């Protein structure tokens, strides 16, 4: 019986096309598989994991996730991370945009020298200052507080963020700005009501870039916060894995709890996230 005659005619894919799909899918699925393995391993008992590391769970034990959530205090870690990155990114972007506008559009003495000074920050890896920064925060009595992360998190990405926003402000037309000035708007009004709204696409990009980077930051987070109550996710997850190193199911469950929501958000806003994370490298 021939059913193909009844179907609308479709071009038979060439061998090359099939091969292309097959090779691409194999590599991509192979690379995604560790995440899938992590996901279902969290449902298994430790005995199951030991007996057959690759097998699917016999019973899907959701309770492991509740257990990991409680033992790891993961809700608290999430809250801490949300608070620290939320405040830092907001402050960072506000402050950076203000400066970027001035460096792009206003004329004042020392502008270019100040901008070049700022660019030093583009070249420095953050590890370079951990020692003095630790003691600076200690002397300010800020260690073990949210401020120990918020202040460095707001300051360190400034150079790159200002650099990126400035190049965007440079592309904006001058007419609107001039019109606002003629209508009697002062500098801040011109900035806040005319220019800042125009820069929104670029803002979204730098917000995403900094959100992801700061959300995942480990070094400052583990050195400047010792209190378990104030830890952010990466530092807390690392500590958790240290306590429960051989309780495989719990580590897998905790890993899933901390990665799956991020991946869901990523796939929901994929285009924007990719644009955000590759910005600066694409110019």
């Amino acid at each position, binding site marked *: 019986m021939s059913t193909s005659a009844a179907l609308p005619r479709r071009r038979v894919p060439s061998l090359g096309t099939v091969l*292309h799909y097959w090779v*691409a899918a194999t590599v*991509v699925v192979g*690379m995604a598989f*560790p*995440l899938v*393995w992590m996901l279902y391993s969290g449902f298994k008992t430790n005995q199951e*994991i030991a007996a057959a*590391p*690759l097998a699917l769970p016999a019973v899907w034990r959701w309770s492991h996730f509740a257990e990991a959530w409680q033992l790891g205090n993961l809700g608290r870690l999430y809250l801490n991370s949300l608070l620290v990155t939320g405040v830092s990114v907001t402050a960072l972007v506000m*402050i*950076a945009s*203000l400066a970027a506008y*001035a460096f792009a*559009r*206003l004329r*004042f*003495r020392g502008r270019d020298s100040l901008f070049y000074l*700022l660019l*030093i*920050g583009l070249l*420095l*890896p*953050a*590890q*370079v*200052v*951990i*020692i*003095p920064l630790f*003691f*600076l925060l200690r002397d300010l009595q800020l260690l073990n507080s949210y401020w120990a992360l918020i*202040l*460095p998190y707001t*300051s*360190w990405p400034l*150079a790159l963020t200002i650099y990126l926003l400035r190049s965007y402000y440079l592309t904006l037309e*001058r007419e609107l700005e*001039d019109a606002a000035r003629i209508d009697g708007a*002062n*500098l801040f009004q011109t900035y806040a009501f005319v220019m800042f709204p125009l820069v929104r696409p670029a803002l979204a990009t730098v917000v995403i870039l900094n959100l992801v980077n700061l959300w*995942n930051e*480990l*070094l400052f987070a583990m*050195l400047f916060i010792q209190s378990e109550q104030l830890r952010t996710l*990466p*530092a807390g*997850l690392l500590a958790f*894995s240290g306590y429960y190193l051989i309780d*495989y199911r719990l*580590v*897998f469950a905790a*890993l899933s709890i*901390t990665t799956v929501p991020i*991946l869901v958000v990523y*796939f929901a806003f994929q285009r924007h996230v*990719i644009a955000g*994370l590759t910005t600066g*490298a*694409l110019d």
Partner: protein
Amino acid sequence: MAFPSRARARSEVGFGSDRRPAGASRAARLEDAQKYLFVLPALVLFATFVLLPLASAVYYSFTVWDGLRTPEWVGWWNYVRAWNDSVHVRSYLNVGVYIAGTLVVEVAFGLLMAVLLASNRRGFGFMRGLFFSPMVLSMVAAGLLWTYVYDYRRGLLNEGLRAVGLGGWAHPWLSDGATAMLAVIVVSGWKYAGFYMIIFLAALRRIPQSLYEAAMLDGATPLQRFAHVTLPLLRETTIVAVLLCVTGGFAAFDLFFTMTNGGPFNATEIPTTWIVKQAFDRHNMGYGAALTVVMTVVVGVVSLAYLLATRRRHAVEY
């Protein structure tokens, strides 16, 4: 005059030139002062939490200091010690190997995947998204996950090898000094290849299709088209990608700290893990600071040399 002077160019643009007639109004001067308010918050934060610590690091690097008592000035002693510290010297060899490895598994593999996934057919957009997805995970999560993938008895890798009859290849990947670095490099590639894939993809899309059509008319095979059309036109992108990969390699820390913390027996010790150990485990703050200064100089010199070298070749070519 052929070109307008800088002062003239300034007075022509927009508002607020810095040259004002002698009797400038109070309002105008007030506005000049206001301009500094725009950059003030950024500069205060940058000076306090970036520049000041940077200057202190240089100062501490000339002292012996445990973080509690007063730092004691010792001149270049820490730098001499750094030169004679065999683990420190080795950490640079290790990070060199790591960077060389990441150039392959991140940049070269990313380029390969960009070519492979650059298709508008159904499903390829999803595959690109999936391939990029490890980029949004933390290094801690990636490192932890892969620590379990590499687990000798229960790991995905060894168990997978056993499943396909290659059980003899099963290996304690992370606890053997001969394979630990390779194992970390692979995770780096898993995490970052998607980033370079996107960068190369954007560059590929800028190559005019007509060039490929011309090459096909001339009878070029796909491989020849790649070697003689694609690669030369990706030169600029590759230069940037390599620079990002090299500077990023020097700054690597999280993955090493999570997976091996420099072990076994310093086989994966890199400058950053050694610095953190010196400063925060052994309380050698002065020595740790000296190591950070060395690292800053090395990263700066390497990046500068690279930029100069690629620029010179560029000049010769055209």
